[in-house]
């Protein structure tokens, strides 16, 4: 990242924070001394040397989480979220970097818009906001946006996505995959065959039949992923699959990876925890795209995440204003909050498998996004982007307590394990004692 300014000799800088007795990625307790934006020392009983001491007893230090899929809504829907409010939600969730999706208004399909988002992120200063550029102009799926200009901009865009829409035209998808090879870009595909999901409201299956809601068949996702991995193989490009949601998609991906296709995939926390039965209340807080699937899909996604067929967890944090959710299911906008609850959901789903969590929520997403300062375990000389988790804490999710401007969390009332106690971005706290510092 260009904004990395720590530099110099970390040992010479004035120590800022000493974290005492913290378990780094679940290992035995140790102290971490943060200075000059990096981790200066790691070891037992380090001298404070004037640093502010943070009690890490019982806490686990993870590399700061990296979200490859966040909707910050700015510009355009600042009533639902802003770069600042979304950054704060991210920091409170343990994130130090988020990739902001392009479906804003105006769409992030020019260097100007991506630079604006990037600049707003720097001004907020709570997480690194890495803009994602649109693949096609206006997300319309008709012609390529100026991908190179976005790549060359101050925002240095490397991920391109029409998320919310599928790049359905196979020729356009092929061209996009090929074109971004020039600057090591990756196309993040929202896999949804549009003709198979016209009017779709929820997963097509037993529950949609009972509720009389138009079905979103699993094959609409699987068919696009199958096509895209073949295209990526054909042109030798990188493909990233957004919010994979079905057991069938896992099988397509498994096959592609076996063939050596350069494909990565993400799964959302909600697809790992919730099923389509939630729609029975007709409460649109459970409406999301792709939709919540069956318990068999949830099991397959969990296994694939552990196995590594699915590479990362991404939140698809999608804030929506109250009026877009307090309405009829069919009229509601799809999407759920995710940043502030993702780690808790993963602890609930995976248990305290800290290295796996660090791999899926920080190291691999940072690598896919090319965020070299992020996704590194705390060690001497590494940028001090990290988060401290209290695994023993349990909390009941209260929508009114979310830092996001929106309230559409699907976990309201659920009691989940884990609490973010502190988050550090380049050695400076963005969260302390579980509260955002600004």
């Amino acid at each position, binding site marked *: 990242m260009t904004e990395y300014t720590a530099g110099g000799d970390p040992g010479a800088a004035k120590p800022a924070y000493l974290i005492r007795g913290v378990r780094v990625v679940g290992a035995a307790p140790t102290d971490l001394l943060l200075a000059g934006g990096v981790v200066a020392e790691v070891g037992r009983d380090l001298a404070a040397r004037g640093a502010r001491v943070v009690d890490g007893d019982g806490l686990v230090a993870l590399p700061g989480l990296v979200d490859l899929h966040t909707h910050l809504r700015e510009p355009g829907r600042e009533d639902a979220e802003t770069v600042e409010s979304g950054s704060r939600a991210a920091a409170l969730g343990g994130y130090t970097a988020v990739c902001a999706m392009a479906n804003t208004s105006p769409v992030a399909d020019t260097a100007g818009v991506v630079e604006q988002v990037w600049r707003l992120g720097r001004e907020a200063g709570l997480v690194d906001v890495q803009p994602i550029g649109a693949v096609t102009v206006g997300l319309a799926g008709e012609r390529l946006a100026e991908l190179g200009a976005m790549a060359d901009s101050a925002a240095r865009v490397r991920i391109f996505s029409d998320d919310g829409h599928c790049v359905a035209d196979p020729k356009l998808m092929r061209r996009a995959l090929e074109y971004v090879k020039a600057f090591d870009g990756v196309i993040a595909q929202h896999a949804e065959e549009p003709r198979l999901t016209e009017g779709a409201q929820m997963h097509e299956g037993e529950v949609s*039949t*009972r*509720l009389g*809601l138009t079905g979103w068949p699993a094959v609409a996702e699987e068919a696009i992923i199958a096509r895209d991995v073949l295209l990526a193989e054909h042109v030798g490009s990188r493909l990233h699959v957004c919010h994979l949601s079905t057991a069938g998609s896992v099988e397509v991906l498994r096959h592609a990876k076996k063939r050596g296709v350069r494909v990565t995939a993400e799964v959302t926390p909600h697809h790992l925890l919730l099923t389509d039965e939630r729609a029975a209340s007709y409460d649109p807080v459970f409406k999301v795209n792709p939709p919540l699937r069956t318990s068999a899909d949830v099991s397959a996604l969990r296994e694939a995440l552990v196995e590594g067929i699915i590479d990362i967890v991404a939140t698809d944090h999608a804030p929506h204003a109250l009026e877009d959710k307090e309405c*009829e299911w*069919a009229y509601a906008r799809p999407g759920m909050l995710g940043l502030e609850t993702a780690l808790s959901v993963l602890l609930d789903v995976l248990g305290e498998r800290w290295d796996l969590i660090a791999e899926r929520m920080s190291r691999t997403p940072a690598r896919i996004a090319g965020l070299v300062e992020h996704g590194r375990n705390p060690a001497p000389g590494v940028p001090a982007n990290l988060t401290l988790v209290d695994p023993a804490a349990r909390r009941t999710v209260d929508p009114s307590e979310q830092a996001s401007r929106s309230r559409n969390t699907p976990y309201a009332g659920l009691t989940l394990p884990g609490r973010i106690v502190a988050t550090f971005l380049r050695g400076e706290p963005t969260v302390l004692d579980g509260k955002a510092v600004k």
Partner: protein
Amino acid sequence: MLKHLLSGADLDAATATLILDTAAEMATVAGREVKKLPALRGRTVVNLFYEDSTRTRISFEAAAKRLSADVINFSAKGSSVSKGESLKDTALTLQAMGADAVVIRHPASGAPHRLANWVEGSVLNAGDGTHEHPTQALLDAYTMRARLGRIAGLSVAVVGDVLHSRVARSNVLLLATLGAKVTLVGPPTLIPVDIGAALAPGTEVSYDLDAVLPTSDVVMMLRVQRERMADSYFPSAREYARRYGLDGPRMARLPDHAIVMHPGPMNRGMEIAPEVADSPRSTIVEQVANGVSVRMAVLYLLLGGMH
């Protein structure tokens, strides 16, 4: 007793039977000099219709008025609703007006369920999207019982666009509860996935109308909209009528006692031939009359007592 009637699944056999028995008494009012009962005097029933359905609205209106309730018709056309007022804001308005019950017809599945969260009174689902229409199922069950003397053990064929039919869903649920055997018949494109598991185990599916007719006590023909052709559910109206329409020769395959039902409005010549619609087997006109009695029974049982 229930607070709301949102789905056929809200009714157990005892409650459904109570409604049908009550409806039978309500039916006698139609033949009286004063076609009115005082049971809901001072109660306010709002008909909240987001879709044009004159026949259903009139049926509920007649039912409520015969029970002496005050009726307010709130049509989405030409009201604040079409100016973009949300369902929730409309609900709060109705609440402020003291609605004891809201009868809602809405193009979005589940809208009545949402409304029930926002009003204190009872909510009656008068048809929501492609979901349910429980009072239609009750009046259909009433009609079957009146014509055939029972419901348990009947073989009922529901024919046509089951996928988009709220009438079919409510009927499958209620008829299973009352012990009838339901067979859904139509082209595979119009039979939703996992329908048996979704609604009532034991529900059968057939793509062959001619095979089902000889063992059916009741044939319920569903309205098939011609627009479905544009979406490739079937190739043409002619082919649909040939394979799944009920005409005179097909009707002759039915047992002598069997009846033919249709929730209306009919597409004559599409799913039902005129000679079938107008035959003595047809219960189409009775269904309309029974609708008022059944809706009176439901309104009374939801609103008549203390909650």
